[in-house]
């Protein structure tokens, strides 16, 4: 086998793709269709709550095309980080959609589900053994943090996916997986170079975001050979350029020369990017270096309370000039009124001043109008509602120095003015854990018929 072709339909399962691009991809006879379904970018809520940041109907729309193509062509379909965050509730949610599609097609293909949830007890033991390290500037991991973490997963490497394929799976639905894994597993199993396969996967996982012009909702094709790989956009309106592909290697990473992952790191020191005709780019020189011990990355999120927000505008220049002190005074009034409730968080975002950058804002000078988001977070929704409501009414009628507009300080776009926003989570675990090998943490369950 001199070449293995990998079709990546979209940047995130549920972000969509033009059918014409997908059909172009199928014309190239892919050996595997692979897709990444997740990201930590949308924040801690999705991992913590067990919900997906993508919509069910959008995921189903994409999956229908992928499953049909996999079944008709008898090629594997590999889905990584099911349900957006890859914990058990996310995997079950995605599995339910998958089952619905398979039932409607009336087909029964061998399906492997790989879970990535981590037993707290194991992490406690590893903590005591000193086999847990913070990943970058993360919080210190404590026993309390672990017990209040609702969903705790580890990023799997290629090993569990290869094991599932070797067990005969045609469709692999994986929990939390290192992004390039879905794309690299089959090539590595077939004897292709790990470094090149993972680097190609690293680019394919974002699909046409790496093309020019970029899009998160379009397909990208990867051709892996033994000494290099080639990337091709499948929409005539896009092309892969040397710069778009090289630039993508920077995306969401801190050091493009050295990309760490499960069990090792990709070394890009000698990587070259070469422009080919037809809007294609050839990449070579990337090397995988295994680390002495196998580390996986743990991710967890914990519930910290409930949020209520209120949105309002301010146009009065006399008030805008003293907005900081007005907000401080209102916070004091709230505290004084609810002195029995000391455990809440009250914050006012000031759009038009420093709403986007907060303390990093180098020029916090207000414009002619401000957009305020009053935010309260507390142990219950009821307390959050109470604090937000009281802060809003106090701010509305607060008599600041020099006030002329004595009828009210805020312009509300909506009635009701306050919105309960529900559960609030924060990332609680972002650590590396040493394991014996890449397969131990990730149980594989075979569903459907065995070939």
């Amino acid at each position, binding site marked *: 086998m001199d070449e293995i072709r990998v079709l990546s339909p979209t940047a995130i399962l549920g972000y969509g793709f033009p059918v014409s691009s997908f059909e172009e991809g199928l014309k190239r006879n892919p050996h595997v269709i692979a897709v990444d379904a997740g990201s930590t970018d949308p924040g801690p809520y999705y991992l913590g709550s067990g919900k997906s940041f993508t919509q069910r109907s959008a995921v189903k729309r994409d999956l229908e095309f992928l499953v049909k193509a996999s079944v008709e062509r008898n090629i594997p379909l590999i889905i990584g980080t099911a349900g957006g965050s890859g914990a058990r509730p996310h995997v079950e949610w995605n599995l339910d959609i998958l089952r619905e599609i398979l039932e409607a097609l009336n087909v029964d293909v061998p399906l492997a589900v790989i879970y990535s949830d981590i037993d707290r007890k194991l992490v406690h033991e590893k903590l005591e053994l000193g086999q847990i390290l913070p990943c970058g500037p993360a919080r210190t991991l404590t026993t309390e943090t672990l017990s209040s973490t609702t969903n705790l997963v580890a990023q799997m490497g290629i090993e569990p996916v290869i094991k599932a394929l070797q067990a005969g799976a045609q469709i692999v639905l994986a929990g939390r997986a290192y992004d390039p894994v879905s794309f690299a597993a089959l090539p590595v199993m077939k004897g292709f170079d790990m470094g090149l396969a993972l680097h190609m996967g690293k680019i394919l996982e974002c699909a046409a975001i790496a093309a020019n012009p970029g899009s998160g909702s379009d397909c990208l094709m990867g051709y892996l050979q033994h000494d290099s790989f080639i990337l091709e956009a499948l929409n005539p309106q896009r092309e892969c350029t040397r710069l778009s592909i*090289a630039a993508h290697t920077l995306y969401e990473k801190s*050091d493009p020369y050295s990309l760490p992952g499960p069990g090792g790191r990709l070394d890009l020191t000698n990587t070259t990017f070469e422009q080919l005709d037809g809007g294609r780019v050839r990449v070579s020189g990337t090397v995988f270096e295994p680390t002495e011990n196998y580390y996986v990355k743990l991710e967890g999120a914990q519930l910290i309370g409930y949020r209520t927000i209120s949105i309002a505008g301010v146009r009065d220049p006399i008030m805008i000039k003293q907005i900081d002190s007005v907000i401080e005074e209102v916070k004091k009034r709230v505290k004084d009124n609810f002195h029995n409730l000391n455990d809440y968080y009250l914050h006012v975002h000031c759009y038009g001043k420093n709403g*986007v*950058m907060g303390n990093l804002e180098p020029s916090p000078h207000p414009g002619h109008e401000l957009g305020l988001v009053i935010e309260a977070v507390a142990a219950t929704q009821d307390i959050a509602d109470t604090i937000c409501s009281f802060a809003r009414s106090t701010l509305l009628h607060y008599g600041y120095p020099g006030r002329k507009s004595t009828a009210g300080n805020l312009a509300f776009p909506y009635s009701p003015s306050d919105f309960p926003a529900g559960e609030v989570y924060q990332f609680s675990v972002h650590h590396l854990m040493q394991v014996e090998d890449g397969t131990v943490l990730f149980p594989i369950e075979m569903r459907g018929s065995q070939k």
Partner: protein
Amino acid sequence: MRYVKDAALVIRSKNAGPYELTFDLMFPDKETFDEVRSSITREDIAQLYGIDVSQVLSIVHFKPAHAIKITIVRPHASGDLGETDVYGAQQHAPLLKLTY
């Protein structure tokens, strides 16, 4: 003295995981990249964002993309209380003032 923004093709910010914020500055060719890259220091970045130099984790020059990559510690983990930009995609504006 010239503005980096006039020479760059791309100036962007994004999370690099929930605890870091990373900035990419990309230039059209090797000449411009070489001209700009030596003049951007960790001290410049610390000053632009009003943070301590120790919070500027790295400045990497990535030759294949004619790119300078700057990574700083996020003021807090993505989505923590006080968050203003969960994806970190709108934290690049101060870089438009960089000169070389």
